[in-house]
């Protein structure tokens, strides 16, 4: 289908979610459930990525900056800054696009091809809103929290790798990290996280909702959700960095 047609449908899908809200409490319950799925369910993978990313970045920066003129704390400040500004939010969200996005798309796609969405519609329920809204809200709330955790843990990884390899002491690392900390950078990082979270969940919901056919098409939708949201995340990354830094 033509790109603009797709995009138009996506916008209409988002708009359609907000009309005719049914029982608030049911929405609330579903949102909490999704927050648990998305947030708690992704904690493990997010932690692993963050620690290794921090560790690897530390080793790599140390390697690139080998020079008697560079003081050790500089390494800490570079690692903590690049983790916060780019690596933690972007890498984590690219992985979450795979984990959360494909899960959402295949769940909703299956509901579509097994007529569960039709069953909701028959009852007079706004199926797009009922299914997608709780997932999008949950993602937009939980993913930024995961990113904050990820930022913290990538510094932990950096400290560990610095100490283990004898490149710099924890004190030197923290001195560098503290020295370059800017609240604005954290804010920028969270703006990215919100944007990525919305991209991941809404694109996955959209792809799943407009699945037609059978099991094979559910797989296709899920793949599409991951590919489209990954590309959109990288694009948004560029645009946000250009605008806000």
């Amino acid at each position, binding site marked *: 289908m033509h790109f603009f047609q797709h995009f138009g449908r996506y916008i209409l899908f988002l708009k359609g979610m907000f009309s005719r809200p049914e029982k608030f409490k049911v929405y609330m319950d579903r949102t909490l459930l999704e927050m648990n799925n998305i947030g708690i369910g992704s904690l493990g993978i997010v932690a692993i990525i963050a620690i290794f990313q921090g560790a690897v970045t530390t080793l790599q920066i140390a390697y690139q900056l080998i020079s008697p003129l560079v003081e050790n704390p500089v390494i800490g400040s570079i690692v903590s800054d690049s983790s916060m500004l780019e690596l933690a939010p972007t890498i984590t969200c690219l992985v979450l696009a795979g984990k959360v996005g494909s899960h959402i798309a295949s769940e909703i796609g299956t509901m579509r091809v*097994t*007529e569960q969405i039709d069953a909701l519609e*028959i*009852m*007079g329920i706004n199926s797009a809103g009922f299914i997608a809204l709780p997932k999008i809200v949950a993602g937009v709330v939980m993913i930024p929290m995961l990113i904050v955790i990820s930022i913290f843990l990538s510094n932990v990884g950096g400290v560990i790798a610095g100490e283990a390899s004898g490149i710099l002491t924890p004190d030197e690392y923290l001195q560098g990290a503290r020295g370059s900390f800017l609240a604005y950078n954290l804010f920028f990082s969270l703006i990215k996280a919100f944007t990525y979270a919305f991209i991941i969940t809404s694109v996955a919901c959209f792809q799943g909702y407009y699945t037609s056919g059978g099991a094979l098409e559910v797989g296709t939708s899920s793949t599409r959700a991951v590919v489209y949201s990954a590309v959109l995340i990288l694009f948004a990354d560029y645009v946000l960095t250009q605008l806000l830094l």
Partner: protein
Amino acid sequence: MIDLKDIRKAFDGREVLKGITTSMEPGKTNLIIGASGSGKSVMMKCMVGLLRPDSGSIHYDGRDFLGLQHKELREIRREIGMLFQGSALFDSSTVQENIEFPLKMFTKMTPAERLDRVNFCLEQVHMEGINSKFPAEISGGMKKRVGIARAIAMDIKYLFCDEPNSGLDPVTSRVIDELLMEITQEFQVTTIINTHDMKTVFDIGDKIVFIYEGQKWWEGKKEEVRQSGNPELQAFINASYFG
């Protein structure tokens, strides 16, 4: 009574429903029969509002279904129950949650009242005591019955069933047929069933509508089916028995 007038529906320029005019009798089992691809499912989807016809009108007891505003449309929706071909139970919810879902969304019932209602509906389909099972844990025939229980959870007036017997063995098919008839009679609902099972037609059919290539080719009472003198209908019946 549901009145359809000159319903047309095309997909990508190919007309699937070519002007269907008929009516569904109140308190009766109305059977829509026809070969695969003749347009039965599309016709049913148009009737319940899952598809919008390109032209024509549908009246539910005089209420213009296609011209209604949100609020009135919602009211009619509450009066409609549907059993889907694959049952369409919510697979992340238990049987209990499936059946009470419409009650939760649309009534102010307390949890105890809901439980009563769920048990009552399960009793109607002879499936007591499976409240805590998940759809994946029950057989196809049981899923259909739970699907019926969910469809009748609200006080419905119209019950739609798309191929209620597909994928079921002959014995279970008869059980489902009987259930549908019992429910139609006990609750005086207008039941509309899509089927190509001729046994269903002769067992529980009141009114029969034969769809042939997107057109209403014949309609009448079950008793008249054999003497219809309509060659396509005759061929369809014969094929079902000797094919």
